[in-house]
């Protein structure tokens, strides 16, 4: 692969962020709320005979009593439901080429189905069964638990798979945003069927849930079908108030995660970010494009193109409802670590020392607008966007006004936003690599904390 930076923007689009071009508007969609409180989003897209349906429940890792509870609960829904065992459920879906995936995110859980439109009745019925009539079979859940534990262990083999968890733990400390979304080995080992069932009973309620359906269907008929399948679902969700995310960044700290056989150092440098509802959200994405959001970004240019220290360097904001993080991510061979970190910090400092000129800003504005439409091309991507509206409360203006918001950014505004939002002091750093080799190098950058990559849980 020539470069890795493009995947970053795709990721951002999948979570909460989008980019717009003047000529690109969100296709028409309907939003309605059923009598039981269930929210329904419908958007017809007829280019190919496919449908994507995403069930979104506002319950994620932030509601975990044991780390991994939301993630495991969502997955348990696919382990047998209604009349069907897990194996029968999977056979039926596989036979028609349908996919169903479930997972728990930071602030919501989702079950997503993708299928041929001719199988609409069959798959929607199965989706409803999964959501409303899960069996929580002890034996299936125990087997899943073992597979999940193995997956957590396997993730520890790959620095890039786990480094984000360490960064969240370092940055958010006691706040729920520090939770490992997939859980950790210690917490998953203690998970009981009652933990999953309890999480389900508490949070999986119609007034806490939205179904986003995009693809080749007729909206009127779809509404009737959804009412028939989900209309009887009853219950109310209790209030959940998440505190604002206070970030622990009173001094520079370095978390060194030991992986003795590592051949390279993988690192994140960052600090507090912004909430998803921040009015400067779009403008900050444009500025970040210049710093580390595209191939010609300052970070990638210095660390990859000019010096060959790494295969790719990037930066990003990760926004949540009550706060967020900003981070720079890259990797380099072990004996180049100091050189790479120094160059990363020096390049980052250009935001304040040199600032952003008009030509660079214009290029970034054109880039984010030009790369926007392909991010909402498939029914799955559009269903994801509608689900994001449910979780974070934005509406189509976010897409339709995007170009205007991008165009409104000028050099002066950019300068003031850099000063306001990009963390400059007390940077927090995580380095995964060979601790023996790295200890003297990385301890220069802040108060050193050490741990090992193969621990049962992150404990700082």
């Amino acid at each position: 692969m020539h470069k890795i930076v493009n995947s970053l923007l795709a990721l951002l689009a999948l979570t909460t962020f989008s980019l717009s071009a003047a000529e690109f508007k969100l296709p028409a969609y309907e939003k309605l709320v059923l009598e039981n409180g269930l929210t329904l989003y419908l958007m017809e897209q007829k280019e190919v005979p496919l449908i994507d349906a995403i069930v979104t429940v506002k319950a994620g890792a932030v509601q975990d009593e044991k780390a991994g509870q939301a993630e495991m609960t969502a997955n348990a829904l696919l382990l047998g439901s209604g009349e069907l065992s897990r194996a029968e459920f999977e056979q039926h879906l596989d036979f028609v080429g349908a996919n169903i995936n479930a997972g728990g995110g930071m602030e919501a859980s989702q079950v997503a189905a993708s299928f041929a439109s001719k199988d609409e009745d069959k798959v929607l019925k199965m989706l409803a069964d999964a959501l409303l009539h899960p069996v929580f079979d002890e034996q299936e859940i125990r087997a899943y638990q073992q597979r999940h534990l193995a997956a957590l262990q396997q993730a520890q083999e790959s620095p890039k798979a786990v480094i984000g968890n360490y960064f969240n733990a370092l940055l958010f400390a006691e706040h729920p945003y520090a939770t490992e979304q997939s859980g950790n080995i210690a917490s998953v080992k203690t998970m009981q069927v009652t933990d999953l069932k309890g999480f389900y009973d508490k949070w999986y309620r119609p007034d806490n849930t939205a179904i986003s359906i995009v693809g080749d269907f007729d909206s009127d008929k779809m509404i009737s079908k959804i009412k028939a399948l989900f209309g009887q679902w009853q219950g109310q969700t209790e209030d959940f108030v998440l505190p604002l995310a206070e970030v622990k960044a009173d001094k520079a700290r370095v978390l060194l995660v030991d992986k003795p056989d590592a051949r390279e150092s993988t690192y994140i440098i960052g600090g507090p970010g912004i909430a998803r509802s921040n009015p400067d959200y779009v403008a900050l994405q444009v500025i970040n494009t210049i710093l580390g959001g595209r191939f010609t970004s300052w970070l990638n240019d210095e660390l990859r193109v000019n010096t060959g220290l790494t295969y790719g360097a990037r930066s990003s904001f990760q926004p949540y409802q009550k706060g967020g993080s900003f981070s720079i991510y890259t990797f380099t061979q072990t004996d180049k670590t100091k050189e790479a970190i120094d160059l990363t910090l020096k390049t980052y400092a250009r935001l304040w020392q040199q600032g952003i000129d008009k030509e660079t800003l214009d290029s970034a504005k054109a880039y984010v607008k030009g790369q926007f439409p392909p991010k909402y091309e498939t029914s799955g991507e559009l269903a994801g966007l509608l689900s994001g509206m449910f979780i974070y409360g934005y509406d189509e203006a976010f897409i339709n006004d995007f170009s205007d918001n991008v165009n409104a950014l000028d050099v002066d505004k950019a300068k003031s936003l850099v000063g306001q939002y990009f963390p400059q002091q007390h940077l927090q750093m995580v380095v995964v690599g060979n601790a023996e080799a790295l200890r003297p190098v990385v301890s220069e950058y802040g108060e050193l904390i050490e741990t090992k990559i193969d621990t049962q849980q992150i404990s700082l």
Partner: protein
Amino acid sequence: MKSILMLCLVLLLATPAAKATEAKDIQQFTLENGMQILVLEDDSIPNANMYLFWKVGSRNEYPGITGLSHFFEHMMFNGSEKYGPKMFDRTMEAAGGANNAYTTENLTVYTDWFPADALELIFDLEADRIANLDINAEVVESERGVVASERSTGLENSNFRTLHEEVKGVAFRAHPYSWPVIGHDSDIANWTLEDLRQYHKTYYAPNNAVVVIAGAVKFDEVKKLARAYFEPIPAQPEPRNIHTKEPEQKGERRTYVHKESVTSPNLMMAFHIPPTGHQDYYALQMLGEILAKGNSSRLKQALVFEQKLATNVMSYIPESFDANLFYLYAIATPGTSAEALEQGLVEQIKLVIEQGVSEQELQKVKNSQLVSFYREMQTINGKANTIGTYQVYFGDYRELFDLPAELEKVSAADIQRVAKTYLRKANSTVGILDNKEDSYAQDR
């Protein structure tokens, strides 16, 4: 990443519905210099793309210059006559475009994604680097570091890559598929500017390319621009023929890789199979899916859910100009030995060879391939990549639209026959990745 990327392409063996793209929607012409151009008008978004498929990959290399095709992929971004160093990316991004590229054993593919009104600029940028690439010594040195980092981070973060490299090296002793696409470290460190110049002249010749443009463009406009920008680039003599054939394997081969941080054994089995386009191609693809696609597939059902020997299993069959490999890859559950996992996997292969597959399994594969085709045809990028891939490997993109008929021809007996023919021990290479050093029993 080249091997993972190709996975999605093996699934596209199905027919379009009335509303989806059809063969007649694609228009084609060949420039006087031999460059083939395919165009798909598609106004679903105000964007377009250009995919350039160059018929050069690691199979065109030889010891001493292994990895050069992939390195060249990087060099194509590093400056040419009109658009000097860094200007290819800077110019494209300032116009709202983005790009990437990938290299496989057989191909190097460049992808440009842009607002449709930037079409002429994209032609200008591509024509400049095809005709007038500037291979600069200083830039080559920096780029060596980038590729070394790419190689290193792949081995650091992906067990699949680590094992794949070793298995290929054992399965092929003559054919250039033997070495990893990214090349050997010592070759990355040592190829010369002259190697690069010769490679560019030979392989980045218009007669060695297939170009696909899809999106909010007009055929006549594309044709006009292609003639203006690409046609003046001279054709070159046909590249040397790759005539090496891997000698028939006469018995099982094995390899072992030690990596301290691996938490449970990884197993890869590879079997020699004929190239894409061979009469057994479809049956082999379908066998791969029956074995490992979806939780109801044979290997997942048996090894993951029933016997709990594996946490995951996959199959992988690259599209290929020359005879290549059918791969099975499994990760053991904690506490399961590589031997037990291998035995479990071999038993499943044996079941297919002895008892065949059911009509239901056959139908499932056909259904699944149809839906996969639609998923790929949802985007202009999926369309361009798929159309180009079929043009290159089958010599005609229309093959993509003939596939339902090809699939219908495959019977359960054919699946059993190809399993019996190719998934034999004497035709296999077994690779194990584990955290213990390989040692004699008395040393343990």
